[in-house]
């Protein structure tokens, strides 16, 4: 008796969400399935359904360019996450100390986030240029043997890209953390002070666990930016020197249009999806599956 009325409860809301449901199903889900299906074909420039089994994946995992790009993504991703969270939180904690000109500092730290990745990449390419950038300037001050040339060194070029990405994205993490800190009750701080707990312990053991939702939000935003990193690499190093700063998204785009090999590109993007799923699925189960059992 109760069943039918449950379906028609909130009917207006359900009807209003039909476009979004259709978009999610057709565009996201449908597009994903189409891509995965075509990754088993040998499509060149235009999609065709000549199935070739796992050939594209075989080729993908024996291509040095792809292996390097996965390695770069792992290094860049883990360091970017750790550093942007740590630096973002530190900046937010410092800003929260009721200082003067807090608005000015906040604006300055958030400004780089307003720049596109292309501008960020170009600016940092110039800053890290050995002749005209940082190295050149410090050398002109007298330190002749100062070397800071990450963009032309194959082993550390990914760290040059990391610097640019952190400069651009830390501002946003800082603002999120600041909002989270401001949401902590005044009485918390007073109680901790009364109990005689040192400041750093208060932050580490009381405040951060209370800010868990904010950390999760910041994590999702930073993580989605990491997987998508493409225009920063194109603007800053063009994938170079050689193929040392390749990233998976750039491999996919290059395969699609430059190499005119859709099958390879789709295989690469399916692998990117699998990687993300491997990380997300256990986390989602822990996060949401656990609660249901407890409830």
């Amino acid at each position: 008796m109760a069943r039918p009325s449950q379906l028609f409860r909130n009917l207006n809301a359900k009807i209003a969400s039909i476009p979004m449901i259709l978009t999610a199903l057709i565009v996201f889900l449908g597009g994903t399935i189409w891509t995965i299906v075509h990754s088993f074909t040998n499509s060149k420039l235009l999609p065709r359904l000549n199935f070739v089994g796992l050939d594209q994946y075989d080729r993908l995992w024996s291509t040095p360019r792809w292996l390097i790009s996965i390695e770069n993504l792992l290094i860049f991703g883990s360091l970017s996450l750790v550093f942007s969270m740590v630096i973002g939180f530190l900046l937010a904690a410092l800003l929260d100390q009721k200082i003067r000109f807090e608005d000015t500092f906040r604006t300055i730290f958030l400004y780089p986030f307003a720049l596109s990745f292309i501008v960020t990449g170009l600016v940092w390419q110039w800053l890290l240029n050995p002749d005209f950038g940082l190295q050149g300037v410090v050398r002109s001050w007298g330190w002749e043997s100062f070397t800071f040339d990450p963009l032309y060194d194959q082993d550390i070029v990914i760290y040059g890209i990391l610097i640019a990405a952190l400069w651009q994205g830390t501002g946003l993490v800082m603002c999120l953390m600041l909002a989270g800190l401001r949401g902590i009750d005044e009485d918390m701080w007073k109680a901790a002070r009364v109990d005689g707990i040192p400041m750093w312990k208060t932050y580490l053991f009381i405040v951060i666990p209370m800010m868990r939702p904010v950390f999760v939000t910041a994590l999702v935003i930073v993580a989605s930016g990491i997987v998508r990193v493409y225009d920063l690499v194109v603007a800053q190093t063009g994938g170079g020197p050689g193929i040392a700063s390749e990233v998976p998204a750039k491999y996919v785009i290059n395969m699609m249009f430059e190499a005119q090999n859709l099958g390879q590109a789709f295989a690469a993007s399916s692998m990117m999806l699998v990687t993300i799923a491997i990380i997300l699925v256990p986390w989602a189960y822990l996060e949401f599956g656990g609660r249901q059992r407890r409830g």
Partner: protein
Amino acid sequence: MRYKLLTAALAAAVTLPFAAPAVATDLEVTHWWTSGGEAAAVSEFAKAFDATGNKWVDGAIAGGGPTARTVFVSRITGGDPMGATQFNHGRQAEELVEAGLMRDLTDIAERDGWKNIVNPPSLLDGCTLDGKIYCAPINIHSWQWLWLSNKAFEDAGVPVPKNWQEFVAAGPKLREAGKIPLALGGQPWQAAGAFQVLMVSLAGPEVFNKVHGDKDAELAGGPELKPVFDAAADAREMARGSNVQDWNQATNLVITGQAGGQIMGDWAQGEFQVAGQVAGKDYTCLPGLGVHDVIATGGDAFYFPVLKDAAQTEAQGVLASLMLKPEVQVAFNLKKGSLPVRGDVDLDSANDCMKKGLAILAAGKVVPSVEQLLNQDSVTQINDLMTEFFSGDMDPAEAQKRYAAIISSAD
């Protein structure tokens, strides 16, 4: 009755202006010619097209061929085609033609007799499908040139080399004089181009045709090609320190005497021209690296995506026909440094190096370009291998093995 004549005269006076030539149409033309010399050349086409009453809307895209072609392909397949676009001779647009996304130019080709004037005829083969022609070839560019800065060798106290081996020998002296022996830009296509120049010049045209045309992987991995990979290792050593990206930045190093030489196609001539340098006096050119006098007949062709608008399609036809007219061919190619596709035009005012190129072309010592023999997938794989090789420490034997693997999987 009395006014019949007057009415007829009035009507005629009103309709006559409408019999005038077609209205001016805007046509968006995309290309990747962004260096000084290239821009000067493409403006010749723009001027000629504007003179027909239409309007050339320039769509230059920076970053080199591969970057620009990414934009072209995504626009055409995405349903936002431009009026005309540049591609290289060969297989770059083959799938777009097969999918029917390119306009058929056979009527214009037959009217203007392209089959008789385009030399070598293989330039039209790359865009001919089922007997229909889909592109307008506009120039012949060859990769097989070594450009040397007379000033750099003077500063180093070494005579200007006459072939590749002498150039390699002069390398250490150039380094001592503070020059970069070989200028090489960082974009992958430049390293790959330098490599295939080494191959055709040092190993010879038959080997080149067998490896790229017949996809002979055994030959590619065999002893005939070992000296080529060793020469590539020499080139790599000589190119260390050239921290530039674009090809014209590397040419600029040669023009200003900071580098000894550059392996680059004859489109570099445009840069020397714009800088006011004179062939033989300020710079020297060695076709085929001074070893095997052979040039590849690569170059550019314009393709015309299918458009729905009739006026624009008409304008496309006008542009296509215009690009192969003798005056336009001469004007464009002299500025660009390339050879005209028409065998019947006179390039008296061409400089020394262009004359060398014309002589080699007339003697028929040509090979097809890599883009005409391999599809973009294989070309990109070779680009990746070569850029990895030139920017790292890969062993030449290892590079040869991987190269043979790419050739064996090419189609």
